[in-house]
């Protein structure tokens, strides 16, 4: 997939206490083509260059609309770089390298047999923390292909969910919190829905321990599962070899061979 580098304009930045939804627009004057983003792909964001935000920050595609030339990012401010992104004002410019990485498998309509899932089958998207970011665009693309996925999200407490209203409009939403302030108490992998429903495909993104627990559940129940990794990155385009994860093929770059992997490719001890 051809990669681009260009400036985007901040259209809107909607912040809640836990995260910011940054809506960007690729200007018409920018002669650049708006690519067909695949869910699970990410962009490399140039934060205003300062000593502490030297490298670009990898951020997932939260939503992309080609007709409006819009790209949405969901950002959790955990450090200097993400904090600066969360403070952006409409009209400001942001330089991105995009689209990067390999995304989730979205079964095309009518190709169900090959992928062994079809629209009668049940898909589950499991997210933890800001890991829900890529799952929204994934859900939108699944919907377009005729699949209505379920969502299972986990957080520390009720105030730590990100933009869940948007997901509710698409499919059924199941929640867990560690303190029991919302949904079932415990971790996502302890939710009762996993016992009562047999899912046919699981997609997950979130903290690594959570994804490993999900992968374990999937493996034990023989469910195909894709995970989206967040290894730290320098280049994002496969040249520095800093972002590697151990796979059956050896050390693989998460930025080019991932961030999405089928759990069968990984050497996780689960």
């Amino acid at each position, binding site marked *: 997939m051809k990669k681009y580098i260009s400036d985007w304009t901040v259209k809107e930045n909607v912040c809640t206490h836990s995260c910011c939804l940054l809506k960007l627009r690729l200007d018409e004057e920018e002669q650049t083509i708006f690519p067909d983003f695949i869910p699970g792909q990410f962009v490399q964001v140039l934060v205003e260059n300062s000593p502490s935000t*030297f490298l*670009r920050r990898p951020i997932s595609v939260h939503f992309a609309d080609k007709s409006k030339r819009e790209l949405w990012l969901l950002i959790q401010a955990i450090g200097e770089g993400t904090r600066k992104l969360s403070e952006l004002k409409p009209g400001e410019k942001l330089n991105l390298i995009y689209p990067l990485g390999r995304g989730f498998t979205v079964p095309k309509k009518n190709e169900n047999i090959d992928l062994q899932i079809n629209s009668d089958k049940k898909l589950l998207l499991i997210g933890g923390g800001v890991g829900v970011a890529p799952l929204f665009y994934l859900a939108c693309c699944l919907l377009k292909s005729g699949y209505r996925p379920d969502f299972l999200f986990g957080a520390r407490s009720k105030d730590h969910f990100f933009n869940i209203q948007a997901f509710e409009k698409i499919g059924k939403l199941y929640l867990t919190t560690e303190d029991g302030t919302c949904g079932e108490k415990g971790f996502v992998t302890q939710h009762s829905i996993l016992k009562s429903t047999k899912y046919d495909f699981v997609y997950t993104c979130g903290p690594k321990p959570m994804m490993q627990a999900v992968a374990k559940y999937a493996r034990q129940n023989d469910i195909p599962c894709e995970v989206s990794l967040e290894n*730290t990155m320098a280049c994002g385009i496969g040249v520095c*070899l800093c972002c590697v994860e151990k796979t059956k093929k*050896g050390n693989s770059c998460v930025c080019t061979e991932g961030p999405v992997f089928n759990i069968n490719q990984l050497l996780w001890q689960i």
Partner: protein
Amino acid sequence: MADLNSQIGKLNFKNPVITASGTFGYGIEYADFIDLSGLGGIVVKGTTLHPREGNDYPRMVETPSGMLNAVGLQNKGVDYFISDIYPNIKDMDTNVMVNVSGSTVEDYLACTEKINDLEKIPAIELNISCPNVKQGGMAFGTSSKSAAEVVKAVRKVYHKTLIVKLSPNVTDITEIARTVEAEGADAVSLINTLLGMAIDAEKRKPVLSTLTGGLSGPCVKPVALRMVYQTYKAIKIPIIGMGGISNQEDAIEFLLAGATAVQIGTYNFIDPTVSVKIVDGINEYLDRHGFQSVKELVGGLIS
């Protein structure tokens, strides 16, 4: 428009801007962003005789105005390079050079001999910052004796342009530079990364799996510039300067300190188009100051 041609050994470069090993892949990765023929040259990823898996993750951490890396020369080996990469890059309209790395003199030699057979690779950059496994893991480039040994051996079998890339992790870089010159290197390039460390205070643990790693990026520039300047005073063969270059001013500073050409490394990650911007920037500078050729800038500090 000034003349940007630069000469290193027998080799002409259409301009003095080269991309640094380990930061530019095989060049192809950047073809979506820039016209590679606009570069003076490309030094591809460190290549070893045998495939190497590299070090464990985490291999990278950001530091103020730079980064530490401990990739550990992950590459698929010289045979893979020859069969799978070379056919795709040999017709690039720029000087494509291979960064040869190794852990024994024999490995360096065997790898060099294989690269020597490749018609479209006009030069190698010998990376002597690698640990010498037979000498307790000390880098070849940190003692005159082991540096001399590897350069002498390689020079015997390699008759194209031989660039030796120096390690900055030494007391006196000019001593190593003089040794390498005496053994017949056509040029030296410097600096490789500076040995550094990062600690996570909350976890009370080193950040990198290898404990230490190589520092690069704008934070190393003053050190690199000083080393280029000192080396320029000490040797007669050309110098390729690098370390933290992020724009044309930086590049011009290296030329003034005595570098015949420059390499751009880490900054390619921040701006994949920076290398060609620097070519334009140097050109603009030369015109503005009334220079006919970039060669007039080399070592051109006014005293």
